[in-house]
Structure formats: C-alpha cells, structure tokens
C-alpha cells in the first residue's frame, strides 16, 4: 500500500534568471506522478511565475509558464497565491493565468485551481502539510 503524503511546494522566486522556478515545477510533476497530495504556494516574487501573457522570445528560454496549464490533468488543483505578495507588486487576481481542473466528482465541471489567500491563511495551510519544500 503506497503512502500518500501532503506535499506543499513554496515558490518564492520569479520564473527566469535562476533555475528555481522550473526545477520546482519539475519536482511537482514527479510528486504528482507518484500520486502524492500536492499543493503549490506562490509567495514573494514567486507570484510572477503564474502571471498571464509571458513571452520568452527575447531571452531565448523555454516558456514553461504553459506547463502550469497541465497541472489540472495531473490532479494538482490546490494553487495558493499570497494576497499580500500580489498587492506588494501591484498585481491582482486578474493578472494571473486562469488555471483550471476538471472535477471528477462533479460531472467533470471545470473549476479554478487558484485561491488567493492571506499570509495568515497560508500559514495555517502550511502547518497541515507533511512536507514543505521551498524553492
């Protein structure tokens, strides 16, 4: 019997310039392939990772922001965004990519995976996890 643990990945850095963001996404997909209970948090500059309309043509790098749209198919549908981090950067939920999943238990209705939460709420969610990994 496989053991399922609650994994939370904390994304704290912007997409490019360092490998943290893309490596985090890679590990997230691996955890999902092993059918773990995975959630993601976007804090600090990490909120830039899921901003809508990214274009990497000018820097010659892979635009892996598209990969976030695949997370729903991997049953990853708990994406928490820090409300404070958004506000500090002059961003709002409307600047974020519409990331969705299909709810198996609700006739495959398309639902949003994104939840904007306060840092206090995030703290509570983090304390429920078995493992938190910071990137």
């Amino acid at each position, binding site marked *: 019997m496989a053991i399922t643990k609650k994994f939370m990945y904390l994304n704290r850095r912007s997409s490019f310039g360092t490998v943290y963001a893309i490596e985090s996404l890679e590990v997230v*997909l691996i955890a999902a*392939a092993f059918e773990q209970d995975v959630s993601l948090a976007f804090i600090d500059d990490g909120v830039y990772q899921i901003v809508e309309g990214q274009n990497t043509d000018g820097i010659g790098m892979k635009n892996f922001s598209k990969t976030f749209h695949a997370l729903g*198919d991997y049953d990853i549908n708990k994406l928490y965004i820090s409300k404070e981090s958004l506000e500090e950067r002059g961003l709002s939920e409307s600047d974020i990519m519409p990331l969705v999943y299909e709810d198996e238990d609700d006739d495959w209705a398309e639902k949003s995976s994104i939840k904007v939460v306060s840092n206090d709420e995030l703290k509570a969610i983090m304390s429920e996890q078995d493992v938190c990994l910071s990137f």
Partner: protein
Amino acid sequence: MAQICGAEVDEEGFLVDLKDWNKEICIQMAKDDDVELTEEHWGVIDFLRDYFEEYQIAPAVRVLTKAIAKKMGKDKGNSKYLYSLFPYGPGKQGCRFAGLPKPTGCI
C-alpha cells in the same frame, strides 16, 4: 554520440535537439525497435507533439491516457490500446518516436 539519420540522440535514444525531429527519424527509430508505424501510431505521435507544443512537457502515462480518452475516445484512451502500439511504453517509447524528451517522473 549516437546518431539517427544524422540527428544526435542521447544514451537512451531520445533526440538531443528536439528541433531535429522529422518523420524519417521517427520511422527509423521505430524500425530499430521492430515497430511498423501505422495510422494509429501516427495518431498518438501527432497527439504527443501537439501536447508538447501546448504544455512544454511530455505527459506522464496516466495523464496521456486520460487526455487521449478525452480527445480520441475511450477505445483509444486506455493503456491496453496504447501499450499494443508502443510495447515499451506509450510514455517512454511514444515520446521518443515523437521527438519529445523523456516524460517527467518516468523511471
């Protein structure tokens, strides 16, 4: 480094530069694995290439199966059908033929 039709491949036979892919390479890879490509194989290969274009990743088998079921119907979106086409695994072998990287989380 090993080559197929002039394109470099890694030690597991995956293309080093994904832009090198063409049908000739795909057919040669299949021939080396004793697989004769049919319309049904191409259906899955085209699907994998479209998936990669859209999401920038090679899907895990579980995800691939689900996605094919959604797009091409349940008779094709099941592992029995996919393994009958790609005996070494629709993820590993299928992605290699399609010129994709090895699926993330694939052992």
